[in-house]
């Protein structure tokens, strides 16, 4: 019989497989079985009475034998013996002439009684054994299913806390117990991590036991048996010989847990241990990956800081010192130029720094979007307004269809995307070449295109241009850290869109990005 793991009832796993104390077999010894045996014999007597005139006595005995065997197959030992004795007696009494008396000559039927009794006992013994084996197999199957379900559920958990919660919930369901999980905190003190809401009461003496289970050298399951007279049972969560925590179990409807159940709990505990270890390893590898990335970021940052940040600083220091020098007789025009240089370079420094800050902000914590439905036109408008000074007389052509649907976006971040893309176009194209910005709806996405009429991109650029600290092949002397487009990419992707760049056939570069028009339910 196949059992769905979900409907394993508390009882099926709890059944103890020792025949002496088996609750399943005990139920067979009740009065109903005896009544059943009696009923079978009454029927036997009836049919024997009908057949008594045309059947030999030995064949009539067979009728009784069939009845007794039915009882043996259906019931336990007691009713079988009862049926056997009653059968032989009633055969002697009703069938063997002289009828309705136990005659002296009937003593020979004692042999019949003995033989039938022997057969009954043998068959009954076999039956009990078969029944016990079936039950054990059933029990094992249920437990395997329970273990399997647990490992499936745990594998689905990616984070330690939810893993612990799932484990506690699962075990308390299948074992009909209160369950807690204890794990060491930073100070190596065991603390309850899951399962307190079940009403598990952890008394100081029990905490001591949990501690000793966690710290003791010998942590075989038998060891913990010594505590089975306590309220709870405490098992270590072992992984390759090291304890990760302790599983505490308090049975709800039993005084103590049998050794079978303890063994089973230990295998559950081992399963949890293995899953915990997996989760821990996954977290660790995630951490180290992050560390490597930060390390790379840092080295790239250092190398770019040394050049890109120092150049404008050098200009500022140089120009300012020139202005400060009292002996220098600068013409008004020269002074004006130096001052203009200082101003321009400060602006450049500011841009570099704010991009750096933005990037660290975007990469350190997951971007939290404040999405609001709004027309794209509005964001484009405010971006262009902020760029007013830099745009100067540069022709900017905007083509936004009047019926373009509104789109959910984080206005501040999206403004940054427009500003970075437009600034990028300004930087790498001739001063008078036009910039075109258009938007259109494509299915459930809104596609924006920002095109320039500059030299376009190299094939390599198209692939890598959105990577952190990547500088295009034709950047030449233009200062920059290579973060502006990387910022665009993280922002657009956080919105669920895509960003890419192409060189158009007529030479200029086009930057595209899409934004989903519908807000997906965020996980």
């Amino acid at each position, binding site marked *: 019989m196949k059992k769905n793991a979900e409907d394993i009832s508390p009882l099926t796993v709890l059944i103890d497989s020792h025949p002496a104390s088996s609750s399943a077999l005990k139920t067979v010894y009740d009065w109903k079985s005896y009544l059943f045996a009696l009923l079978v014999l009454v029927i036997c007597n009836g049919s024997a009475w009908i057949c008594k005139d045309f059947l030999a006595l030995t064949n009539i005995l067979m009728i009784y034998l069939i009845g007794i065997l039915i009882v043996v197959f259906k019931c336990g030992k007691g009713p079988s013996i009862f049926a056997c004795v009653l059968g032989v007696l009633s055969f002697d009494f009703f069938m063997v002439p002289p009828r309705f008396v136990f005659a002296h000559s009937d003593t020979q039927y004692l042999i019949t009684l003995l033989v039938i009794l022997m057969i009954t006992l043998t068959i009954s013994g076999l039956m009990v054994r078969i029944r016990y084996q079936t039950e054990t197999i059933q029990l094992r199957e249920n437990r395997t299913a329970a273990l399997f379900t647990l490992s499936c559920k745990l594998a689905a958990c990616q984070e330690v806390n939810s893993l612990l919660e799932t484990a506690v919930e699962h075990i308390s369901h299948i074992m009909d117990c209160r369950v807690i999980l204890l794990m060491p905190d930073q100070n190596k003190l065991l603390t309850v991590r899951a399962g307190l809401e079940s009403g598990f009461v952890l008394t100081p003496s029990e905490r001591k036991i949990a501690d000793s289970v966690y710290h003791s050298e010998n942590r075989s399951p038998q060891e913990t048996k010594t505590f089975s007279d306590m309220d709870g049972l405490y098992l270590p969560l072992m992984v390759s010989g090291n304890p990760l925590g302790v599983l505490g179990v308090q049975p709800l409807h039993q005084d103590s847990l049998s050794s079978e159940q303890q063994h089973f709990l230990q295998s559950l505990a081992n399963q949890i241990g293995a899953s915990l270890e997996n989760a821990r390893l996954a977290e660790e590898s995630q951490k180290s990956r992050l560390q490597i990335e930060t390390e790379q970021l840092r080295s790239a940052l250092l190398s770019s800081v040394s050049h890109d940040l120092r150049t404008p600083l050098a200009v500022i220091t140089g120009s300012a010192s020139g202005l400060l020098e009292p002996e220098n007789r600068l013409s008004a025009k020269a002074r004006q130029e130096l001052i203009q240089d200082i101003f321009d370079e400060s602006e450049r420094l500011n841009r570099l720094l704010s991009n750096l800050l933005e990037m660290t*902000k975007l990469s350190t914590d997951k971007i939290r979007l404040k999405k609001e439905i709004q027309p794209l036109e509005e964001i484009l408008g405010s971006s*262009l307004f902020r760029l007013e000074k830099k745009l100067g007389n540069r022709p900017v052509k905007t083509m*936004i269809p009047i019926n373009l649907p509104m789109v959910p976006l984080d206005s501040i971040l999206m403004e940054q995307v427009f500003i970075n893309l437009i600034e990028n176009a300004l930087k790498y194209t001739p001063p008078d070449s036009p910039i075109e910005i258009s938007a259109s709806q494509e299915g459930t996405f809104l596609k924006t295109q920002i095109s320039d009429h500059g030299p376009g991109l190299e094939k390599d650029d198209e692939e890598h241009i959105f990577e952190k600290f990547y500088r295009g092949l034709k950047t030449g002397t233009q200062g920059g850290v290579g973060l502006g487009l990387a910022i665009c990419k993280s922002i657009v992707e956080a919105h669920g869109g895509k960003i890419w760049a192409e060189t158009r056939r007529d030479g200029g570069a086009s930057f595209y990005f899409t934004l989903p028009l519908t807000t997906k339910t965020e996980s």
Partner: protein
Amino acid sequence: MAAIYPTILMIEDEEHIRRFLRHSLESQDFRLIESATGAEGLTLAASHHPDVILLDLGLPDMDGLEVLQRCRSWNTTPIIILSARGKDQDKIHALEIGADDYLTKPFSVGELTARIKVALRHSNRPNAASIETVFKSGSLMVDMQEHRVTLNDQPVHLTPTEFKLLAILVRKAGRLVTWKELLSDIWGPTGGDSTHYLRIYISQLRHKLEENPARPRYLITEAGVGYRLNVD
């Protein structure tokens, strides 16, 4: 208070910023008083009755927002916030609890003087009755009394809500008006957070008033905060 030169109180802990502001503002005939801490700033605001207060949000002794709140509890002097980049939440909060405008560092002196002038103009005519009835900016003309709007001398037809919205922005021309203010002014305190209605009306206004709605001249969006009606 009625000094010949407008008095500006500057509450800013950064010595260098104070110096460059002092040089540039004094050269433009503003009288400047300075304070490096919030506490001193509050005392000076009470004793000197400045015409405009420039307030930095990052002060050593107390939160700039607290200075703003205490200031607002007893006077209505225009306050312009000078804030560092990337603190949009602070900016919005500051505007909500009574700041008149904000400037993100770094800013140019030109920008600052323009904002100070707008603030002074508004504080000089404190009540609605004395507001000029005709507003002009570029080719846009708004006659508040007649409810008439013209663009290049051509009349523009606005719906009542659109006009209401424009009127609020005109009344605070040059100053930043937060979404919250606009919503509650138009739809009352129950206006709530339905900023997307506002965006639709602004978009409609832009399509009627702007030459290129994607590159507005008059109705400027301050991303994440609100709108500003640009004056030339």
